[in-house]
C-alpha cells in the first residue's frame, strides 16, 4: 500500500515537472502574447522591465526552482491574463468544475451500472443488443459535438434549457437558487455522463454474465432462490465494487471531458479557464490548472488503488 502510494506520488511530481518543461520549451513568445501581439508598441526599456518582471531573463532551471519554492509556500503565481493571483482564480472556479465533474461521475455510475446490470441479466436478448450498441455508439461520439447537438436541439429548437453559462445573466453561480442551478447544470452533466458511461456499462455487463455463469449462482438457483434474490445477494455484491474501482480510475478522462464540455457550454469552471490560459499562453495559470488536475487524478488513482486492495483482501478472507 505504502509502495503504491509512494509511486503515485513520484508520478505526481514527475508529471508536474514534465508539464513545466513542456511549457518552458514552447516556442510561443510569452511577451508577445502578454501584449496581445502588439510587440512594437513598447520601448526597449519597457520590454526589458517586462522580461525581468515575468522572470524570463532567468534560466529554465532557476524559474522552475523559484516556482517550486513559491508553490511550497502556497503561492501559485500571478496570472497576467486575468490580472489576479492564480490561487484566487482557482478558488473561484474549482468548486463549479468539481460540482460538474462530481455530478456527472455519479450520474454515469448510477445509470451505467443499472444499464450494465440490465444488459447482463438479459444477455443475448434484444434489450442487451440495444444497450450494447448504444454504449458503442456513445463511446465513439466526440463529446463536444454531442454537447453542440444537445444545445441546438434542447436550447435553440425547443428552448427548454439555457443556451449558455452557469447562471442567469449578471449573476454569480452561488447567488442563484438551487432550481436554477440544476437548470443550468442539466445539459453539461448529461453530455459528460453520456460520454463516460460506455466503459462502465460494458464492464458491468461482462461481470454480471460471469457471475450468473458461476457455480455458486447455479447452486443457489438449484435451491430455488428467485431471480430477485440471486440478483440482490450475488450479482450486485460481486459487481458493484469493481465498477466503482473502474470509475475512480477513469477520473482523468472525466476531467478531460469537462474541459470540452465547459468550453462548449461556456461554463466558467477550471476547464474553460485552462483553455483560455493555454490560448493566451498564460504559463502561471496553466501550471496552476495542471497542478490541480494532476492532484485530482492522483486522488482518483489512489482511491481506485485503495478500493481494489481492500477488495482483494476481502476475497482472501
Amino acid at each position, binding site marked *: 500500500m505504502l509502495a503504491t502510494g509512494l*509511486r503515485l506520488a513520484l*508520478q505526481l511530481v514527475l*508529471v508536474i515537472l514534465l508539464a513545466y518543461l513542456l511549457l518552458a520549451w514552447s516556442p510561443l513568445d510569452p511577451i508577445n502574447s502578454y501584449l496581445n501581439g502588439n510587440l512594437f508598441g513598447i520601448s526597449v526599456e519597457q520590454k526589458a522591465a517586462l522580461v525581468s518582471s515575468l522572470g524570463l531573463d532567468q534560466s529554465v532551471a532557476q524559474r522552475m526552482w523559484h516556482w517550486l519554492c513559491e508553490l511550497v509556500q502556497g503561492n501559485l503565481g500571478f496570472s497576467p491574463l486575468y490580472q489576479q493571483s492564480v490561487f484566487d482564480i482557482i478558488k473561484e472556479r474549482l468548486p463549479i468544475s468539481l460540482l460538474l465533474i462530481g455530478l456527472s461521475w455519479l450520474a454515469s455510475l448510477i445509470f451505467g451500472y443499472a444499464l450494465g446490470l440490465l444488459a447482463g441479466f438479459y444477455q443475448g436478448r434484444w434489450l442487451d443488443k440495444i444497450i450494447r450498441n448504444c454504449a458503442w455508439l456513445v463511446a*465513439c461520439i466526440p463529446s463536444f459535438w454531442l454537447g453542440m447537438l444537445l444545445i441546438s436541439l434542447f436550447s435553440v429548437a425547443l428552448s427548454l434549457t439555457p443556451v449558455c453559462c452557469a447562471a442567469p445573466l449578471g449573476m454569480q453561480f452561488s447567488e442563484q437558487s438551487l432550481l436554477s442551478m440544476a437548470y443550468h447544470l442539466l445539459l453539461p452533466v448529461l453530455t459528460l455522463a453520456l460520454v463516460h458511461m460506455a466503459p462502465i456499462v460494458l464492464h458491468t455487463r461482462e461481470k454480471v454474465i460471469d457471475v450468473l455463469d458461476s457455480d455458486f449462482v447455479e447452486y443457489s438457483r438449484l435451491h430455488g432462490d428467485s431471480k430477485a434474490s440471486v440478483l440482490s445477494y450475488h450479482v450486485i455484491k460481486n459487481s458493484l465494487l469493481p465498477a466503482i474501482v473502474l470509475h475512480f480510475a477513469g477520473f482523468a478522462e472525466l476531467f*478531460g471531458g469537462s*474541459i470540452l464540455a465547459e*468550453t462548449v457550454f461556456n461554463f466558467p469552471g477550471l476547464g474553460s479557464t485552462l483553455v483560455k490560459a*493555454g*490560448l493566451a499562453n498564460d504559463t502561471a495559470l496553466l501550471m496552476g490548472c495542471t497542478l490541480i488536475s494532476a492532484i485530482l487524478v492522483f486522488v482518483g488513482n489512489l482511491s481506485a488503488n485503495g478500493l481494489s486492495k481492500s477488495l482483494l483482501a476481502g476475497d482472501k478472507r
Partner: protein
Amino acid sequence: MRKAFAQPTVLTLSLCLLALIVLAGLWPSSGAELSLLDKNLPPSLNHLFGTDWLGRDLFSRSLKALLASFYTGGLAVALSCSIALLLAMLAQVNCAARWCVDLLVDVFMSLPHLLLLILLALAFGGAQHGLIMAIALSHWPRLTRLLRFEMQAIANAPYFQLAKQFGQSPLTVIRRHMLPHVIPQWLVGGVLLFPHALTHMAALTFLGFGLDPVNPSMGALLSQASQYLLTGHWWLALCPGGLLLISLLILSYIANALITALRRGPQTHVSGGEFA
C-alpha cells in the same frame, strides 16, 4: 486477420470507408468558392449538407476536411505506434529499462489526455506539425503497456528461452521469434488508436490549439459551427459531425472485428490483450 476481412459486414464497411476516402480525394470542388447569393441554405439536393455563412458548399468542405483529418491522423498514429513498439522492445533489455518504461507510461497516463495534448501542442508551437507531434506523443502509453505484457509472456515461453540458449544473437532472437507474434497485436492496436486520434485531433482543433481554421479540418469546421449554433444553423454542426461520426463508427467496428479474429486466431498462442 484474413478471417476478419472474410466477414461480409467488415468487408463492406472497409470498402465503404475506402470509397468515401477516394470520393473525398477526387471530389472536384475544394469547397473554398464563395457564393454570397446562396449563403446559409439548409441541406437540399443542390447542396447536400447546405451552405455556410459565406455560401461555401458544406459537403465539399466536409469531404476535404475528412481527408485532411485522415492524413494527419494517419501520420500521427503511425508515429505513435512506432514509439510504442520501440519502447516495448526497450523494456525487454533489462530490469532497469523495464522500470523506466513502466514509469514513463504511468507518468504520461496520469494527466487527463486532453490536458496532455494541450501542453504538447503548446510545446511544439501549434499548427499542423504541432498537432501531429501532440497526438503521436500522447497516444503511445496504452499500446506500449499492452505490447510490453505481450512480449513478457513470449519471453517466458519455453521455445523463446530455448532459442536464446541456442546462442543466437539477441537481435535475431527478437526478430525471428518475438516480432512475428507481436506484429498482429501491434497493427490492430494501431487501427484501434486511429478513431481515438481523429476524435482528439478534432477536439484539440475545436479548442483552438490545432490547425489553422483557414484549412478545412473537422475540428475547425465544428468550432466555427458552434458560433452559428444559436442562430439556428443546425446543419453546420450536424452534417460534418455526422460524417466524422460515421467514419469513426466504421473504424471502430473494423478494429473490434480484428481484435475478435485475433483472439480466436490460431497463430497467437498468447491470449489477446484487453483494450479499454
